[in-house]
């Protein structure tokens, strides 16, 4: 009898643990690994070995439907993406790594090496039809736990969002929004981060300040090679950072 009770107890513990794990997955919680403050600068490097010690978690991406006339239909392709979180106090460093076969950068024109002092245009436009790969991390301006998440469509009037934006070839910038078509650049708000391109994938690190426990975050990825820009992109649902 004692043996039976023992087996039942073990099964019960295992079951509860499994249910707990499932519940955690249902809540889409992302654990942020605590890291020493001294590691901050290292973490800003997307290919620093410090990231090897932090468990990557898969991010499931969706694609927006065609929004405007002429948008391509969904070709069912999705990049494979992972996220790693490291916490230094209330700042969280997130490294997103995703597959992208083609490197598409935003150019800033080309200088002509042979034009000398008499050149007419110091910088030329070289590419009129290309679009850049890009990443955005969206965080509600109101940090901390939410009973209802802000709209995936750039937040709401009552729930404005911060948009930590990276574009290949241009770097990082800070945007803000309070609903669709309200995205504006935020002046004097530098974003810290780093990028790395290896094989057929991008890794981008962004420092997110003031991420208290259970603050929701979500991600968007643009594939420039597929002419993605604006609302045409891959996006995740909300995750909570612990």
């Amino acid at each position, binding site marked *: 009898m004692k043996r039976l009770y023992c087996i039942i107890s073990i099964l019960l513990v295992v079951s509860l643990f499994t249910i707990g794990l499932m519940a955690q997955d249902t809540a889409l919680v992302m654990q942020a690994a605590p890291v020493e403050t001294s590691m901050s600068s290292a973490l800003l490097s997307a290919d620093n070995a410090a990231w090897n010690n932090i468990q990557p978690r898969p991010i499931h991406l969706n694609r927006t439907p065609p929004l405007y006339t*002429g948008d391509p239909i969904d070709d069912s392709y999705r990049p494979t993406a992972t996220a790693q979180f490291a916490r230094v106090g209330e700042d969280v460093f997130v490294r997103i790594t995703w597959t992208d076969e083609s490197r598409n950068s935003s*150019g800033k024109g080309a200088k002509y090496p042979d*034009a000398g002092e008499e050149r007419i245009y110091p910088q030329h436009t070289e590419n009129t039809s290309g679009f850049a790969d890009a990443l955005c991390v969206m965080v509600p301006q109101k940090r901390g736990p939410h009973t209802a998440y802000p709209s995936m469509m750039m937040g709401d009037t009552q729930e404005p969002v911060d948009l930590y934006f990276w574009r290949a070839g241009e770097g990082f910038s800070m945007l803000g929004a309070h609903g669709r078509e309200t995205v504006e650049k935020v002046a004097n708000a530098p974003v810290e981060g780093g990028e790395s391109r290896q094989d057929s994938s991008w890794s981008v690190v962004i420092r997110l300040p003031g991420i208290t426990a259970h603050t929701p975050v979500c991600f968007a990825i643009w594939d420039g090679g597929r002419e993605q820009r604006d609302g045409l992109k891959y996006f995740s649902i909300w995750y909570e950072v612990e």
Partner: protein
Amino acid sequence: MPEHQYAMVMDLNKCIGCQTCTIACKKQWTDGDGMDYMYWNNVETHPGIGYPRSWHSIGGGFDKQRNLQPSPLPAKEDYGEAFEYDYGQRLYGGRKKPVMPHKTPTYTPNWDEDVGGWDTTNPYYFYLPRICNHCTHPACLEACPRKAIYKRTEDGIVLIDQERCRGYRYCIKACPYKKIYFNEVTGKSEKCIFCYPRLEKGQVNACAQQCVGRIRFVGLLDDPDSPVYKLVKGYKVALGLFPEKGTVPNVYYVPPFNPPKQGRAGTSILEDSRLPLDYLVYLFGPKVKDVIVFLEYELSRAQRGEKSEVLQLLIGRDDHVRYKIVPDVMREAAPQENAGDFGAAPAGPPLEIKGSPIASYIDSMSNGNGSPLTASFEGTDSCAPSACGGCSIASTCGINTSNGGEA
């Protein structure tokens, strides 16, 4: 709808393809970084490929259900390269390097200049100067998800807010005329601004100011005193480009109506066409035939020594005939009785129109009485020899300009 609409008319019979307008615009507006390949004003040979390559056949505008019909984005190669040279070496170095552009040319804005068409013994072409059409229903404006493009209420000029633009380029795909350009250095789209800072000071557009052929007429389309009103709504001799695209352009063209064949000067284009009429219909729509009929009739009248006010207006020797610029401050003080109605002729003087000129012509022909046209515009210089400075049609209109305009 805007309260007023600035418009431009270009008389293609007078354009000599000298590109002075192109350079005037280039020096005024597009000599900054990333603007090397941009020509907000360009002049291209037609029939021809155009700038950007095949712009007139790749799409844009609206279909009949008012759905946008975006085209593919033109690549840099379709616009052509802005070549650079080793100016320092060539001008000062003298190291015997060849005078070659920095890249091997494969296409340029005027790649097929003066090529045109050819049918056995008859070569033909004409020049088509192009700027943004500042459309009444701009497809670019409708396509922009950022609402960065707007049409000014005070004068109908279409502009791109450089603060809001994020370089998505839906506007370029939507524009049937491909008159919006992407600046890779700024990451934003840019276009012709109809020289609004000049207009606001009472000065005409730079392209018109410098035009040696005096082909351009500028004014408000709802101002009965303006030359563009007279040509577009009065005489109805100026037509928009590709009207079937549905954007209602506000740049109009007087079609080339009588280029003579060798040894057959003066023969009607409708009887013995040098330019293929089908091509003009392709560009300007079926109304081009009516315009040609009317202009040829006016030309025959002038050749008989009769008065042709429309031809005199098209000669446009003096600035005050070709331009009527109304600075903001004057427009704001003016009565608004005609505001917002661009589809019908505003009522009241000083414009006096006694029936449609073309209708009058057809009536006169059917009556067989050969009576002169009854269209009359006050304030328009008559076709008196003393007022004639000569133009590209002078050789066939019967006015001899070599003796001071005496017929």
